């Protein structure tokens, strides 16, 4: 990942579940993201790293530390945060 000098980056734990886990082939990775970003920019970064996720990227949710991120929200990350890729739910 390229870093611009004026942006601060942090390393988060990125988790994958269900179909996203199968596509990525891993349950979790360490992933570097800008400290101040948005939900949509995070999805862009993830699909850039894992292009095969584009097939489901319109249907995934993100959670940060076990709380869902709303569609357009600004996000401030810190090192060690737990970010998860949440495909459409099918529990119950």
């Amino acid at each position, binding site marked *: 990942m390229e870093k611009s000098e004026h942006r601060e980056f942090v390393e988060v734990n990125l988790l994958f579940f269900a*179909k996203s886990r199968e596509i990525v082939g891993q349950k979790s990775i360490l992933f570097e993201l800008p400290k101040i970003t948005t939900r949509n920019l995070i999805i862009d970064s993830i699909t850039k790293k894992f292009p095969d996720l584009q097939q489901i990227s319109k249907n995934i949710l993100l*959670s940060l530390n076990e709380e869902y991120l709303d569609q357009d929200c600004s996000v401030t990350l810190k090192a060690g945060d737990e970010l998860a890729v949440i495909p459409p*739910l*099918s*529990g*119950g």
Partner: protein
Amino acid sequence: MNFVDVVEGALKVDEITDTVSSTSCGAVSLFIGTTRDNFEGKKVIQLEYEAYTPMAKAKMLEVCENIRKKWDVENIAMIHRIGIVPVKEASIIIAVSSPHRKESLEAVAYAIETVKAIVPVWKKEIYENDLSSWKQNKE
């Protein structure tokens, strides 16, 4: 009392009923989700469930709190099974006790709807032809 869990292995409806039963209650209502042997004409051999377990438990506790804002209930238990769930076996049991019957009946119906909407659990249907498909809960 709110009791939530995500477990591997068979769920026991009698144990979960005992967990919520209370001397001050006249009603226990339960919902049990079970594996169906078919989906849109395809024969389902088994389901496989996966959870984001800590968040799933947190969201189930959130459902419990929402129930308590709406209804006078005593105890709530929600247990979701993960891993392989063969046909006819339970993937989820929700049990609610209340002094009067109306509250636990309404709370259980609300609970299963809300669990399906917000608890991060996924199921994959495994068909007899070795194919499989990740499912999506309807609105």
